């Protein structure tokens, strides 16, 4: 499975993924309990059993990726980070169970509400957790680090690959004798997005990105890589948990911080004040250097949303509703325009 530069909420793919679960009574018998209720929640199942509530997940990556994820969670726990879930071990001591060709694992079910980034208190609490997660992640030395999980110094390579893909998709669309609505939207924005990508690459080359990556590699730190509102759970007794570490990677922490800002910008109409508040709040917990701030500019400029939605349509050929695609393509293309104004303002203020 391809790892994305930063993750987008995608309910369609959640549904597709859930469809692949093999929910058989024998699976639960093998896990040692009786299931009373199974409820789908995003890409997992909440199961109510005679022994309590659990979260059932199907392994979606090769075993070496799962080892990486499990050991990252163990590492965080060992460093005193208590805001992540625990893996529930199987009776034989394994982290997962094999069933009819698939592998499943259980975590404790964390009951609560999803974080709301529009609530300043929730957002601040999320930033606190993220800052502590980054600190606790240092010193992580997994037995095996799958190549796709090691991102130190790789941004230029990934930017380049994506620019090439956007160019290829453009060629592909231009060759079509009849253009659909989606094709027209793509062509309207493709040149601008390719230029933005190239500009992002160029700006990145002028920053100290390499030395930041090297420092992170020395510190052996990793990031969550999917720090979305639905992956931060507030329990009703005031505790906060970061969940779903499926996409965690070794990379510089600005990747998580930048993604958090972008997620918020899309909801707040690209309000630069809010972006500065997020940075300020993170900086109070984990001081951010000016070198790190500069890396955020190319990160923001790269047309990630446009590349991703186009890729899903033209390369992965996802079987989604055409109208939905056109809507998404149109919204994400408009982000490209709005983010430019935002970056201008952001650059002035850092």
């Amino acid at each position, binding site marked *: 499975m391809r790892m994305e530069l930063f993750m987008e909420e995608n309910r369609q793919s959640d549904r597709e993924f859930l469809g692949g679960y093999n929910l058989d009574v024998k699976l639960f018998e093998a896990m040692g309990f009786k299931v009373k209720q199974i409820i789908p929640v995003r890409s997992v199942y909440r199961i109510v059993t005679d022994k309590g509530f659990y979260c059932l997940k199907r392994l979606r990556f090769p075993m070496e990726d799962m080892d990486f994820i499990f050991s990252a969670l163990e590492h965080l726990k060992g460093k005193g980070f208590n805001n992540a879930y625990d893996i529930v071990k199987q009776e034989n001591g394994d982290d997962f169970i094999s069933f009819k060709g698939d592998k499943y694992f259980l975590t404790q*079910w964390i009951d609560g509400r*999803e974080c709301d980034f529009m*609530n300043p208190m929730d957002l601040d609490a999320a930033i606190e957790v993220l800052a502590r997660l980054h600190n606790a992640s240092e010193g992580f030395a997994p037995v095996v680090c799958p190549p796709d999980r090691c991102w130190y110094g790789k941004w230029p390579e990934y930017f380049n690959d994506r620019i090439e893909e956007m160019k290829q998709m453009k060629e592909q669309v231009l060759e079509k004798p009849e253009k659909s609505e989606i094709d027209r939207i793509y062509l309207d924005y493709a040149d601008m997005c390719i230029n933005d990508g190239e500009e992002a690459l160029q700006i990145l080359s002028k920053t100290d990105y390499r030395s930041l990556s090297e420092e992170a590699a020395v510190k052996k730190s990793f990031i969550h890589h999917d720090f979305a509102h639905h992956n931060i759970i507030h329990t009703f007794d005031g505790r906060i948990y970061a969940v779903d570490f499926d996409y965690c990677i070794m990379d510089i922490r600005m990747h998580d911080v930048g993604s958090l800002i972008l997620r918020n910008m899309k909801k*707040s109409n690209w309000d630069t004040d809010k972006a500065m508040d997020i940075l300020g709040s993170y900086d109070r917990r984990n001081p951010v250097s000016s070198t790190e701030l500069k890396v955020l500019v190319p990160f923001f400029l790269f047309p990630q949303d446009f590349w991703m939605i186009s890729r899903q349509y033209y390369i992965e050929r996802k079987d989604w509703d055409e109208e939905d695609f056109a809507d998404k393509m149109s919204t994400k293309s408009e982000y490209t325009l709005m983010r430019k104004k935002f970056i201008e303002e952001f650059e002035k203020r850092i």
Partner: protein
Amino acid sequence: MSGGYEKLKRHDLKLLIENLYGLEVRNMQEGDRGILVYTDRGIKRLKGTESDEAKILFSASAYEHVCNNGFRQISCINRTLNGSCHMKYDKNNYILQDFTKGRVYEANTAEAAAVAGKALAELHKAGEYFIPAPGSRARVDWGKWMEKFKANSISLKKYKELIYLKEKKSEIDKLFLENIDEFLEKMQYAHGLLKESGYLDKVRQSMSCNQITHGEFKKHAIFEGDPEGVFITNFEECSYDICEFDIATLLESFSGKNKDELAAAAAEAYSDVKPLDEGSMKIIKAFLIYPKRFFKVSESIYGRRKNYNEIELAQKLARSIKREKKKEEVIRFLDFGR
């Protein structure tokens, strides 16, 4: 069944209700707000809902929480014999509640408005320290209004700029442009008012006591109850929020020439049960000033651009402007009434 529930097969439904709830169904009849089910244990109301199981569980546990805390002017969601809060029929979810006879409450005198205000305060008191049943999906509105006001005003400014760029302006565009500056000013004022009135402190307080609110406390949610009382419905939309939001919704729903008098009576009666300070009054004012209807219609015209019917939307926009202006009398009470 006929009307909105025409796809339901009476016999299937009867058997399903009897089996799931252990009731004997004697008759069924479609009413304004669902299907009335006459059973051996009184009249029930079966209502379709678009919410999923987790959301239904959240509102069902909220109903039970306020009831258990002594607020009886509400009808809980009935549970099935195996403890579920809903039933599934033909892939849709339904809830069953005890039916209460009565009409929509006419709050056209100060006394009547005071009854509604008092009931809301009592509901809020009973809604403190609410922890939903495990597996619920909570509806949460804590702390979002300030940012929402700001983000929405940025959207309206964007639409305004886009319309100015248009060579040929439609009737809707003209109507929008005639009013936009006034509403933008109101949005900014409402945002500023929230900021300076201690809105976030109120959110903090509400979060610390897990305050559940009604979420839709307008005219149609209040029914005539036992002598001189009221009965609260539509609690399914309940959410975690500050109480001031519900109060503003109630005050806004008053109609007639004496709106300011009704608003004053309701606020005073509320405050007798759950005191409102100056900050609360400013927050209520901010909610009232904020032109939510105008924004909603503008958003559907220029933002989502779905179901675009020019004539219908122009009427909607005109109606929303008219209704925004009607709120001014209530706002005046908040300026001078206290």
